[in-house]
């Protein structure tokens, strides 16, 4: 029997971590204990930022990571985070099936094998007032935490303010920030209703967590074992998607029942944001080149 340590960045109670634990149990059982996967949630082994490198270099055989965080290395990794391109769970699945091949190829070049990928709840806009159009957004202080969100602020005429994740609720309480883009789950987990009034389900994008294995380790497995892995992965991907949907509903209901206004965007706002989306897709295409174009074309053709 062989023990596989599997670092996870998010807390044990997070649905991704629960899903990964089920996957680990599935593999352990499927291989008859020949490979025992032990999950280490909450960054207790490696922090999120280090997990990909740790798997890549064989420090651990397997791990889970929010791949879009590595878009600096290869724009393909950021395909799931283009604002207002794929704006629903169905679209997210479509985009992913268009992109999966290219992502697998990029990972292969980094000594990694992709097993499965599960989306987070869709990203929505938090505001401290009613917003019905792009014009309403002008001049609002918006939390920008990476290049894409800074660009988003620029395109919508909002004022970018830089705030680290740990300081978000305080920033809203003190008016340092008046808006941000994040999933309903973020607001639910950090009780944002105490400081923010409106949440718009614009479903800007659905970032994904991907589970990957070290390529050398993978090559050393028997076909039989590989089959166990692929079967468990397929199950984890399907279960994870359902969990993400359930969690989205749970957290949005939670925001609403705590007094936050959870709203669908107006047609005007939708149209204005779609324009922003086009600009940002172009931006990404410039970085991602022909491979990127092929993905976006395939997605749009569907």
């Amino acid at each position: 029997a062989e023990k596989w340590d599997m670092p996870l960045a998010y807390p044990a109670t997070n649905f991704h971590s629960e899903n990964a634990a089920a996957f680990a149990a599935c593999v352990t059982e499927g291989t008859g204990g020949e490979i025992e996967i032990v999950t280490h949630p909450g960054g207790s082994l490696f922090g999120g930022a280090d997990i990909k490198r740790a798997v890549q270099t064989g420090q651990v055989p397997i791990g889970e990571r929010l791949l879009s965080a590595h878009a600096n290395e290869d724009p393909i990794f950021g395909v799931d985070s283009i604002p207002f391109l794929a704006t629903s769970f169905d679209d997210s699945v479509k985009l992913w099936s268009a992109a999966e091949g290219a992502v697998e190829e990029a990972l292969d070049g980094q000594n990694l094998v992709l097993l499965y990928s599960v989306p987070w709840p869709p990203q929505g806009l938090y505001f401290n007032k009613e917003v019905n159009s792009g014009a309403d957004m002008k001049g609002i202080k918006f939390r920008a935490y990476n290049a894409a969100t800074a660009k988003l602020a620029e395109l919508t005429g909002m004022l970018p303010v830089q705030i680290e994740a740990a300081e978000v609720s305080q920033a809203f309480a003190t008016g340092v920030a008046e808006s941000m883009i994040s999933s309903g789950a973020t607001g639910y987990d950090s009780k944002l209703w105490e400081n923010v009034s409106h949440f718009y389900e614009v479903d800007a994008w659905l970032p994904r967590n991907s589970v990957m294995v070290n390529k050398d380790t993978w090559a050393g497995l028997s076909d039989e074992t590989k089959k166990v892995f692929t079967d468990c992965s397929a199950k984890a991907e399907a279960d994870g998607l359902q969990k993400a949907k359930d969690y989205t509903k749970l957290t949005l209901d939670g925001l609403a029942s705590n007094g936050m206004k959870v709203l669908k965007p107006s047609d005007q706002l939708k149209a204005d944001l779609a324009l922003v989306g086009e600009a940002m897709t172009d931006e990404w295409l410039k970085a991602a080149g022909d491979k990127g174009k092929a993905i976006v074309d395939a997605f749009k053709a569907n």
Partner: protein
Amino acid sequence: METLAPIILFLFVLFLLLGTGVWVGLALLGVAFVGMELFTSRPAGDAMITVIWAASSSWTLTALPLFIWMGEILYRTRLSEDMFRGLAPWMARLPGGLLHTNVVGCTVFAAVSGSSAATLTTVGKMSVPELRKRDYPEKMVIGTLAGAATLGLMIPPSLTLIVYGVTINESITKLFMAGILPGLVLAGLFMGYIAVYAKVSKNYKPQPEPQMTFREKLANSRFLLPVIALIIVVIGSMYTGLATATEAAALGVIGSLALAAGQGSLTWKTFGESLMGATRTSAMVALILAGAAFLSLSMGFTGLPRALAAWIADMQLSRFELLMALLVFYIVIGCFLDGISSVVLTMAVVEPMVRAAGIDAIWFGIFVVVVVEMAQITPPIGFNLFVLQGMTRHEMTYIARAALPMFALMVVMVFILIAFPELATWLPENMRTRP
């Protein structure tokens, strides 16, 4: 139980390295290395560098050198003379008289300094000679100073809380807020003890202070303005959310430099000395943190913390029993280790236990600070004892005995914290709903 062998091995190597005088950070590195080599087939060195780089290049950690630097600058100013002049007139009429300047002075200075020893040196270099001149009982002068200086760790800013927060990934700003009320309560306990002592003891016969009118007292209070301004900048900016802990530290450094310049004590020489001193001290802490990061990874691979947490859960210890066990445990290791080392060394194992028991991590940070404060004044290794030894030329045993009542008060403080957890949790939970 199968975890027993690795525990014994870890402890043996640890005690061997620490006890023979290997530098703490490297000793942790060595123990972690042994653990990795024996319990996993993974490449130990590569994994070590991954976590050490992550721990060393952390943004949250930058608050540490800045607060250390701030303390080094203030130490070289006239702040302590000014504080004594400003505080003394108000303390003179209280039962216990100017002994209270030790406690109040430490409390005020604690609000701008992150270190217990720096608080002790800064306040003590003024209060000890002045109190001796007025015939206050030596034991009380030494004891209350040794005890009250530990408030430097609890009242924000606090190096121990930064290290704790970085180690277990909790908001440092929240931890800082959590320390304020317990710090004030502990200061109140110290002052209460002084008042009772003054009423009861036959040794207490200091020379009376000259009368001062209210106007004169107020006029003298102007000396407190610089330090109060600094407190407002540092704690105020964090509480109102205008600055993170790191940014407050940066503001504090600039404020202290301005204060030093205003007093004429800022020269290139003092600037350079404060900077190099801060660089060395923060490097010392950073080496310990680097070793601890690797140890924590190594522990994670062995599965030991998880097994221990499960074991504790199986024992069905109540929350209270667990805390009592930890209290005794920390008092014992506190006799031999400095506070930062005992925090980082134990957290990899203690954190999962505490979380499993449903204990709030912010509250537990304050619990840890109280026990670490005790370690400052317990022999044979206690930094406040060392510093006071250098300052007063007393034997260490004498100082430790003088500080013993303060140690007892800190034990009382632990029970107060357990009985009233809101003391620590109320401020951090409510700072975001500020008007």
